[in-house]
C-alpha cells in the first residue's frame, strides 16, 4: 500500500489497494488488505463516487483506522469521505470500552464538535430574495468572521469555564437565545462528564474571545429556500413548506477545541509505549477509554464540544438580530426557530447492539453525523417518533438537505450517516481552477449573494471543489442510513 510519502506530492497518489463491491452502495476493504487491521473497512459509495474516492488516499486511512485496539464491526466511511489527517473525513469508528477499546483525539479532529444547525423562518422565498443583498450585508455586519476576528460578546475566564461545563443553556440564560433552542440541540448542547478543569490554560486563552465567532475555512452562515420536499408530513412537523426560507450555521469550537486536540494528541503520543499500541500513523495516537489519559481527553473534549454548541448558539443570536434589523420585526415574529443542531466531529459513549450483545462503545464520528432512528430517547420529544433530524450542508452553489435517522443506521452504523458533500479538489487546485473567473459573479448568475472576508474564500470553497451533495445524499438514502425530508437551495452566504 502507498504509505511511502515522505514529502513528495501527495495528491498525485491515489489508492491502489483492494476494494471489493458488496452491493450498489457498499464497498469493502478486507481486513487482510493490510497488516494490523482488526476489522474490515466499509465505504458507502456508488459507481460515481467510488471513482472520486480512489483518487485520494482516504481508503488507506480507512484501513489504518481498522487497526485501532478495540474497534468493533468495521472501520466505516460515509460517501462524503475524503483524505484527512489520521482518520479520513467521513469516518466512523466505534471501540468496545470493556475490551480495552481506545479513544483517539485524531478520530474527532482539531475542530471538536464542528457542526451545523438549521433554523426555519415564517418568510417565503419571494419575500427574502428582493432584499438578499442587504440581508447578507446585515448578517455579515452582525456575525464576527475571518482570521483573528474576535467575538462581540466578552466572557470572563470563569464564565468561559461555565460555558464549557454547561454549553448553550448557560448562554441562553444570559439572553443569547430561547430556552427551546437547547431542547433542539444534540445532547441538549451539554455532554455529561465535561471537565473544564483539565482544559489547559492555553486552550482557555485561545477560546477567550472566540465564543460567538464563525471562523474561516469552510464555516459559513447561509440563507436558503426549500425547493423540494420528500416527506411532507415530517417537513410539516418541522414547520417546513416549499418556499420556506431557512438559515444554516456551520462552525465549531474555534481555537479552544483546536488546542484541546493538540494538547491531547501530545499526551497520547507520550503513552503509546505505555499501552503498547502499534499504530500506522502518529496522528492516530490513542489511549484506552478507561485510562487516566482517556478520561482526561474525554473530559476536555466534552468541554470543547459544549463550548462549540454555545458558540453556535451565540451565532444564532447574531443571525436573529440581523434578520430583525433587516425586516424591522422581532425575531420571534419571523420564526427563526431552531429545527436542530448536530455535531459532526465528536466522540460519544453510546450503547449499541453488536452481534446480539449490548456493548458500551466509544463512537468516533469524524465528519459524520449521528442519525438515531425513531423512538430513541436521546431525540427531542417532539421529533422522537420521526427519528433524529440530520442536517447536511452541501456546497454554496448546489443544495443542502434535511434528513432523518433510521433503524437501519442503528443496526448498521451505530446510528450514523454522512455530514456534507465532501471535498474533491484541494484548496490550491480550487484557486487555480478559479483563475480568470469570478466565483462571486458565477454565484450571482445563479441568484446567490456571497460575502466573504478572506481573499480566496470563495475560490477555495467554490461548488466545483465539492462532490455533488445530491449524489452523496442519494447514497445514504438508498443505503437506508437516513432518509430525505427536504432539500434547500442557497440564496445568500457569508464566509470567513
Amino acid at each position, binding site marked *: 500500500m502507498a504509505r511511502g*510519502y*515522505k*514529502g513528495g*506530492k*501527495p*495528491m498525485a497518489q491515489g489508492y491502489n489497494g483492494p476494494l471489493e463491491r458488496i452491493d450498489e452502495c457498499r464497498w469493502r476493504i478486507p481486513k487482510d488488505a493490510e497488516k494490523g487491521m482488526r476489522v474490515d473497512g466499509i465505504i458507502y459509495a456508488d459507481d460515481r463516487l467510488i471513482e472520486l474516492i480512489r483518487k*485520494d488516499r*482516504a481508503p488507506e486511512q480507512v484501513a489504518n483506522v481498522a487497526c485501532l485496539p478495540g474497534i468493533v464491526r468495521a472501520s466505516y466511511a460515509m460517501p462524503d469521505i*475524503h*483524505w*484527512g*489527517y*489520521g482518520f479520513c*473525513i467521513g469516518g466512523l469508528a466505534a471501540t468496545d470500552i470493556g475490551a480495552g477499546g481506545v479513544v483517539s483525539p*485524531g478520530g474527532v*479532529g*482539531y*475542530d471538536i464538535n464542528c457542526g451545523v444547525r438549521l433554523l426555519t423562518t415564517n418568510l417565503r422565498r419571494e419575500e427574502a430574495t428582493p432584499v438578499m443583498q442587504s440581508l447578507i450585508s446585515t448578517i455579515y455586519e452582525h456575525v464576527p468572521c*475571518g*482570521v*483573528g476576528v474576535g467575538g462581540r460578546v466578552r466572557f470572563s475566564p470563569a464564565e468561559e469555564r461555565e460555558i464549557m461545563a454547561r454549553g448553550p443553556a448557560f448562554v441562553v440564560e444570559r439572553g443569547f437565545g430561547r430556552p427551546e433552542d437547547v431542547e433542539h440541540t444534540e445532547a441538549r448542547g451539554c455532554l455529561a462528564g465535561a471537565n473544564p478543569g483539565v482544559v489547559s490554560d*492555553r486552550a482557555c*486563552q*485561545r477560546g*477567550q474571545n472566540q465564543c460567538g465567532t464563525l*471562523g*474561516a*475555512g469552510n464555516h459559513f452562515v447561509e440563507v436558503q429556500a426549500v425547493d423540494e420536499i420528500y416527506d411532507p408530513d415530517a417537513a410539516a412537523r418541522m414547520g417546513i413548506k416549499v418556499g420556506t426560507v431557512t438559515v444554516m450555521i456551520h462552525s465549531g469550537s474555534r*481555537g479552544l477545541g*483546536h*488546542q484541546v*486536540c*493538540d494538547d491531547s*494528541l*501530545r499526551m497520547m*503520543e*507520550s503513552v503509546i509505549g505505555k499501552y503498547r499500541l502499534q499504530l500506522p*500513523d*502518529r*496522528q492516530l*495516537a490513542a489511549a484506552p477509554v478507561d485510562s487516566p489519559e482517556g478520561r482526561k481527553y474525554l473530559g476536555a473534549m466534552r468541554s470543547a464540544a459544549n463550548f462549540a454548541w454555545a458558540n453556535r448558539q451565540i451565532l444564532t443570536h447574531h443571525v436573529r438580530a440581523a434578520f430583525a434589523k433587516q425586516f424591522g420585526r422581532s425575531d420571534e415574529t419571523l420564526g427563526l426557530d431552531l429545527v436542530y443542531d448536530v455535531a459532526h466531529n465528536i466522540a460519544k459513549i453510546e450503547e449499541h447492539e453488536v452481534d446480539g450483545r449490548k456493548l458500551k462503545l466509544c463512537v468516533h464520528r469524524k465528519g459524520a453525523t449521528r442519525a438515531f432512528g425513531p423512538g430513541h430517547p436521546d431525540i427531542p420529544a417532539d421529533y422522537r417518533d420521526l427519528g433524529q433530524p440530520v442536517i447536511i450542508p452541501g456546497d454554496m452553489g448546489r443544495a443542502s438537505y434535511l434528513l432523518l435517522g433510521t433503524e437501519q443506521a442503528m443496526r448498521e452504523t451505530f446510528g450514523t450517516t454522512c455530514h456534507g458533500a465532501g*471535498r*474533491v*479538489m*484541494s*484548496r*490550491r*487546485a480550487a484557486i487555480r481552477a478559479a483563475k480568470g473567473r469570478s466565483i462571486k459573479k458565477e454565484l450571482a448568475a445563479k441568484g446567490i449573494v456571497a460575502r466573504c472576508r*478572506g*481573499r*480566496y*474564500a470563495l475560490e477555495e470553497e467554490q461548488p466545483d471543489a465539492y462532490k455533488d451533495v445530491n449524489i452523496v445524499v442519494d447514497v445514504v438514502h438508498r443505503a437506508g442510513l437516513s432518509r430525505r425530508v427536504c432539500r434547500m437551495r442557497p440564496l445568500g452566504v457569508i464566509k*470567513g
Partner: protein
Amino acid sequence: MRPFEITDHTADVGITAYGATREELFANAALGMLSIIGDPDTVAPKQAREVQVQASDPAALLAAFLAELLFLLEVEHFVTRRADVESVSDTEARATLHGEPIAPHHDLHTEIKAVTHHELTVEHTEHGWRGTVLFDI
C-alpha cells in the same frame, strides 16, 4: 535550495521545508506557514519575541514550534515575519521571532486551525534537512 514548497491535500494544506541546518529548516517552515496564512511581504519585523519549545522528538518539535507561532498569532495577535532560530536539539528549540501586531493591511486570508501530526517528518537527507508538515485548515 528553495526554502519551502507548499504541498496539496484534499482539504488541507501542507509544506515541505528545507535547510542546511535544523535551525534553517525551522526558520523556513515558519516562513512557509506564514505564506499560507497571508502574504509575508506585508509583515514587517518590527518587534521581537523570544520563544522556547520542547517536544518528545525532532518531528514533534517542529510541530510544537509552528504551533507556538499560531498561538502567538491567535492569542497575542503577533504575526511572525522571520524566525531567527538559535538552537534546535532533538527535543528543544529556541528562537527569536521578528514580526508585528496583526494589522488590516496584512490581509490574513487563511486560518490554520492546527499543525497536525499526520505524516509529520524531520529528516536528514544528502541535501540537508527536510521537514514535512500538514496543517488543518
